[in-house]
């Protein structure tokens, strides 16, 4: 399963969500499908995409939030799972693309390649719904159902360790950040 195919399969569903991605391949691939002002790419600060999603979800209870996380990023901030589980906002969907690799920094294998089970970790942390998917069809159905549902969900998507040729996108970090905030303010008018 390719991450790009997963993103493509749910792209239309993201139109009415606030989307936060991690750095590297995930940001570049979502951007390549067509940038929208409701997408925020966290191009550094590994581990904090899920925390950002939690802050959004608890501040905007009527808004659906999607975080596209990765195994390397989540492993840097496993405590985030326990914090998300503690407040379990039903408007947050946490997708973890697990390619068992720190792909964007050279492809070093992460601990999920040697047996760490992120589904088990998330479930034991107290996330109410945790699912692992291995096909694009399952990914699409699971993420769409989670977005239509009312329970905090973590989806572990097992994907190939492949990505785009480059990671730089034609959008400055600060421009993206101001655009994202302005989009959210426009929802309140």
């Amino acid at each position: 399963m390719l991450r790009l195919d997963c993103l493509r399969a749910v792209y239309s569903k993201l139109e009415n969500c606030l989307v936060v991605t991690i750095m590297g391949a995930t940001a570049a691939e979502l951007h390549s499908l067509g940038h929208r002002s409701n997408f925020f790419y966290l191009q550094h600060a590994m581990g904090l995409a899920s925390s950002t999603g939690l802050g959004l979800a608890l501040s905007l209870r009527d808004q659906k939030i999607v975080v596209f996380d990765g195994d390397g990023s989540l492993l840097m901030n496993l405590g985030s799972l326990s914090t998300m589980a503690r407040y379990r906002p039903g408007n947050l969907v946490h997708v973890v693309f697990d390619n068992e690799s720190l792909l964007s920094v050279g492809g070093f294998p992460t601990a999920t390649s040697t047996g760490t089970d992120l589904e088990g970790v998330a479930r034991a942390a107290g996330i109410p719904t945790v699912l692992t998917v291995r096909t694009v069809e399952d990914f699409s159905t699971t993420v769409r159902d989670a977005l239509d549902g009312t329970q905090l969900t973590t989806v572990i998507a097992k994907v190939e360790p492949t990505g785009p040729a480059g990671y730089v996108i034609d959008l400055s970090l600060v421009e993206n950040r101001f655009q994202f905030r302005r989009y959210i303010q426009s929802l309140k008018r």
Partner: protein
Amino acid sequence: MPVSLTSSKVIFDALKQCDVRLLSALPETWLVHLIRMADEDPEVILIRLAKEEEGVGISAGAHFAGVKSAMLMQNHGFLASINGIVSFAHLYKIPLLMLISYRGSFGERDPWQTQGGNVTEALLRAMAIPYSFLDRIENVERRIRQAQTLAESSLQPVALLLTRDLMWEE
């Protein structure tokens, strides 16, 4: 426990007067009353963290959402947050109002706090984070308001160091 209830109340009220509606916190002795006040106030969202760096992401999310926030932590929590501050708050121009209990400074009896006390201000200066002290109850409201104003106008982290003189009564 000789943590000042009076000072804690003045700090909490000052945060609310600045429209702070979301507080992230990792418990530490000096913050005990502040965290309880946040927990009991229905107008404030309290998020108890596993590690302080999470608070950077949470405050960024709140900022995007138009909600004013503050972070409550010990100076060792500030040390644990440094990458998030640099590679999120500084990189993306995110306002952070950080209230940091200044452990390990003059009067500290706990040996394990002392090394963090040595480096706190040096690190704030190295990171070009504007900071000031909450040391006298008469100044608390104004300092918090000024720090919040600067964080919002400059779109960057601003720190207030909570001192022993303000927080500890014995």
